[in-house]
């Protein structure tokens, strides 16, 4: 195989499944910083985050044969990461992410408009910097995955294993909550 041609995560995962175990290093290089950054939104202890990222990689390697290479690798590894960080969060605080939520009971309409979202992204960066830690965990994780990790609703739906419409609702409610927090803190937002 031509090593000079950049390969997708899914192609590399397939090579690992076929026995090229050393290729796992490439995936770790690609996801190390991303997962650490993702973990920092849940946890504060840097050493703990690094330990959890290491566990995520070990779990990913052990279970790589369960990965369906026709699906997205990023959603799959973030699903493992999500579970690991939520467990880390549970150890850190008692009332973290509830397993059950009424949002996933009925269907919601989720619509992603790329033009609106690009505009929102700039505004959201400011709002997130100010109020992310004050959000309810279920909104916080949706906001992190959508605005900071740049995942689509569909991929977030696979990571959190909830309906796509519910992701849309959580992102919308999280965004509204952030705006309220921002206003409460008496900081002016700029509307174009």
């Amino acid at each position, binding site marked *: 195989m031509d090593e000079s041609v950049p390969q997708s995560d899914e192609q590399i995962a397939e090579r*690992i*499944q076929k026995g090229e*175990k*050393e290729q*796992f*290093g490439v995936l*770790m*290089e690609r996801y*190390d*910083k991303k997962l*650490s950054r993702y973990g920092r939104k849940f946890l504060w202890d840097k050493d703990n985050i*690094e330990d959890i*990222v*290491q566990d995520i*990689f*070990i779990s990913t*390697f*052990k*279970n*790589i*044969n*369960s990965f369906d290479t026709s699906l997205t690798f990023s959603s799959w590894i973030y699903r493992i990461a999500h579970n690991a960080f939520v467990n880390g969060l549970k150890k850190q605080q008692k009332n973290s992410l509830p397993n059950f939520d009424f949002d*996933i*009971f*009925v*269907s919601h309409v989720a619509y992603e408009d790329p033009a609106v979202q690009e505009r929102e992204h700039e505004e959201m960066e400011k709002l997130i910097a100010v109020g992310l830690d004050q959000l309810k965990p279920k909104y916080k994780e949706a906001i992190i995955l959508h605005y900071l990790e740049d995942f689509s609703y569909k991929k977030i*739906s*696979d990571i959190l*294993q*909830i*309906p*796509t*419409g*519910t992701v849309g609702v959580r992102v919308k409610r999280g965004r509204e909550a952030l705006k309220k927090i921002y206003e409460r803190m008496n900081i002016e937002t700029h509307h174009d």
Partner: protein
Amino acid sequence: MTNNQPQKNKITDILERIKNNELMQKPKLYFHLKLVVLILLLVVVGVVSIFLASFILFSVNASGHASLIHFGMTGWQAFLIFFPWELALTEVVLLILLEHLLRSFRFAYKTPILYLFLGVMALMLAGGAVLEHTPLHTKILQRADRELLPPPIGRFYEDTRRPPARDSGFFRGTIETIEDSLLVVTLDNPVGRGTTTPVTVRIPEDQNLEEFTVGDKVFIRGRIKDESIQAVQIKKVNNHLPPPPHMR
């Protein structure tokens, strides 16, 4: 030490452990077997759930309790009182378990919980209704009557035909004779084991004697005193089976 150093150490360490075979991948077979176990579990829970749903329908029909709803509000109340709620609750638990197992699949976690639950429930009830129309339960019931089933299952089947208790105000029986404004009815409702004393039933004023013929199975709402019932309402019952041998 640079910021990247711990990350590099972590990656190198994991690669080293992979190289030394300290970290092993779980084989594909493991995940295939896991999927097979999950599917088997789904099938088992699904089959039990369909069987239970059909048994609930069968017991409501076999006891004749389904006919109670024709007695208006009081009949509905009685129907709800006699409904096998313990079995229905068990069915709900099975449906929740089924939904929980299904959520391991992508199509299921992408579906809102309520819709998935209603879908599973509709499927199990439809399956139950189809199964109830087969002779399966009647055949098992016959085995129960011949005491060929182990006690808990046999008792379950015998109880399907249990008539309401006498103090419920509802009586089930068969018309033996018709005289003037009186019916002589052999009640299924037991006083004691093996008691089948016929009772006289005075029919309500708004009901006509011609509605009834000897041999009709009826549900009677009324009050019993000295083996005589002053009926408020009498309705013919279809489909219900005779009480189990020890109650006859």
